[in-house]
């Protein structure tokens, strides 16, 4: 037994030495930005929103390749779980599609205790299943979208739909509305959009991560909504753009605030976001954005961390990771069909991250963005 232990410890020290060697190698590589010190070794824990999870996974993997001494774990349990896990301090950062509100901040120790930064930008599509109507052929206006989801437009041959779709033969078929059954940021952004463009929706239903749907059936998660739409003739549902692209679904062309019809795309989301310069955790809605190319159903996703970090080493690694995530890390968002953050938001994020301290000293030592 003793001999086995000895052998193990020798093995472990060899392994450690090997790791140490590779650390200095990557740390000293020219890819490290000038002025950015190498982050200390740490294991960071995060949990929260499912919507940006593919991006966070790609990003944390890339970051670990760059700085192997830092591992980042992300557990996509939902935005609510992200907020409560951060509040209970069982994670180092939380993620949510909707920033923490006043009540949640009070529970977490007050509005000044938590730093919230926008991490990525996404947009939603309306996917449909109509034989003979190709992707992008179906044109929907804010009015018809609200009508369909309120249940006032029940059939695909409704005159209101026909008026916007001359030249497209819409069948005499009942509309099956599919929505999310689980609470989700995707639903929040979609109902935020409907509340913005339709007074009827705002007064009858309102916005939230779960709402009382007037019509339709629920499916759990983006994948299930996508699949239900795909296998139900006459169905329509709101789905995260990434899923629409990955599963090759037919999606509607949406009329935006300026009256032009756009097919949702990552560029459309960036265009929409650039219309709103002052975004913060209390004013964060970017739905129904003006601008010719803006995708109308877009929104940010957020990351939360405590302003005062108890563990200085961990805190330093955390802010370094997040600083990288909103700058260099943004390239990994595009790969999974999310959009790069606009420059003004990146700047706001870095300014916010520079307020994070441990024992009174600032943890992020990068020059303040101008």
């Amino acid at each position, binding site marked *: 037994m003793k001999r086995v232990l000895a052998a193990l410890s020798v093995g472990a020290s060899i392994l450690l030495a090997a790791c140490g060697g590779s650390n200095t190698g990557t740390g000293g590589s020219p890819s490290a930005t000038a002025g950015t010190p190498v982050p200390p070794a740490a294991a960071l824990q995060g949990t929260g929103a499912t919507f940006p999870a593919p991006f966070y996974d790609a990003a944390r993997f890339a970051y670990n390749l760059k700085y192997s001494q830092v591992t980042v774990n992300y557990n996509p*349990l*939902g*935005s*609510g*779980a992200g*907020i409560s896990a951060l509040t209970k301090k069982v994670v180092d950062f939380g993620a949510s599609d909707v920033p923490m*509100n006043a*009540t*949640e901040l009070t529970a977490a120790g007050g509005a000044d205790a938590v730093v919230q930064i926008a991490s990525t930008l996404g947009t939603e599509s309306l996917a449909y299943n109509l034989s003979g109507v190709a992707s992008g052929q179906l044109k929907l206006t804010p009015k018809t979208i609200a009508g369909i989801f309120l249940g006032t437009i029940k059939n695909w041959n409704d005159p209101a739909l026909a008026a916007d779709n001359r030249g497209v033969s819409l069948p005499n078929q*009942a509309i*099956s509305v599919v929505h999310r*059954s*689980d*609470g*989700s940021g995707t639903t929040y952004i979609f109902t935020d959009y409907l509340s913005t463009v339709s007074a009827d929706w705002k007064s009858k*239903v*309102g*916005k*939230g*991560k*779960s*709402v*009382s*749907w007037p019509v*339709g*059936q*629920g*499916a*759990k998660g983006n994948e*299930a909504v996508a*699949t*239900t739409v795909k*296998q*139900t003739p006459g169905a329509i549902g709101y789905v995260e753009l990434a899923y629409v692209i990955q599963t090759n679904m037919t999606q509607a062309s949406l009329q935006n605030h300026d009256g032009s019809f756009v097919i949702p795309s990552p560029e459309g989301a960036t265009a929409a976001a650039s219309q709103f310069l002052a975004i913060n955790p209390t004013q964060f809605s970017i739905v129904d954005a003006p601008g010719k190319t803006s995708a109308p159903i877009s929104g940010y996703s957020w990351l939360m961390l405590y302003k005062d970090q108890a563990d200085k080493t961990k805190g330093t690694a955390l802010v370094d990771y997040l600083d990288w995530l909103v700058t260099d890390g943004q390239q990994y968002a595009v790969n999974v069909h999310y959009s790069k953050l606009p420059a003004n938001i990146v700047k706001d994020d870095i300014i916010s991250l520079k307020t994070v301290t441990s024992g009174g000293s600032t943890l992020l030592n990068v020059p303040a963005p101008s």
Partner: protein
Amino acid sequence: MSRGTAERVVPTPLVAASRQRRLVSGDRLFRVIAYGAAGLIILIAAIFVIALVVPALPAITKFGLGFFTSRVWDPVRNQFGALAPIYGTLVTSAIALVIAFPIGLGAALFLADDARLQLLRGPLSFLIELLAGIPSVVIGLWAFFTLTPLMRDKVDPFLSHILGFLPLFKGTASGYGFLTAGLVLGIMVLPIMIALSRDVIRAVPRELREASLALGATNAETTWSVILPYARVGITGAVLLSLGRALGETIAVTMVIGNTMQISASLFATGYTLPSVIANEFTEANGNLYLGSLFYLGVVLVLITIVVNVLARLLIWRFSGSARAAA
């Protein structure tokens, strides 16, 4: 002889005493373990109830018993009522039993009857155990991808063609809804129903069966008036366990019921069940009242299970009571 006996008896009390001491200490140990295990069950149940009721308190104080009769579930306006998911839970479980009871009992009678088709029994038992071992998420996925289109295109139109005069089978079928969910539940509880019923039917004394046959009763008569009455209590237990599984099943139901907060007479309509609501909305529920209402749904589910169990026990008690009186 007496000497010999005496010689042999002399050491015996000594041996017996030490052995007895060992046995007594073993007894004591066993008693501690058994009592501890029993106590632990009570403790777990108590912790479970407290952990469920305490977070539900905000909703219990706000909505009270009105929670059971309100069909509004509006997280935006913080108005919650459990009537729709209670209805969905009861309806889908009832459908499951309507499907699983006759099929399960028939299969159990076949498997327990050791006279015929010996060759089939082994493979069939194996298949049933296999079915019991399939995770519910796999059954749910199969139902979601395969069963819902089949229900929409074939089964539901057929039912509405034949039985369309009943309100149960009216309306357009999307493939999702009470009927599909009930069918999936029926398939899922079938192994429990079969395995338990088979065992209680096998436990019917051979003499009873043989006596009945010897008196000239046919196989069907023997089954009907000897085997089933004898095994009734055990079969009711099988039904109860099946029902418990059906009431609490979550993932597979969520995938096919349509998750709509509504009450409809038509089995083709989409609906909701108590566990599905909890599974769907728990992760993103914010605010004490919303979260409390989800816990309250859990309390309701436990209450339903208790009520169903008590009713079944009363039923058994009554049945066996009247049977004894008749005898």
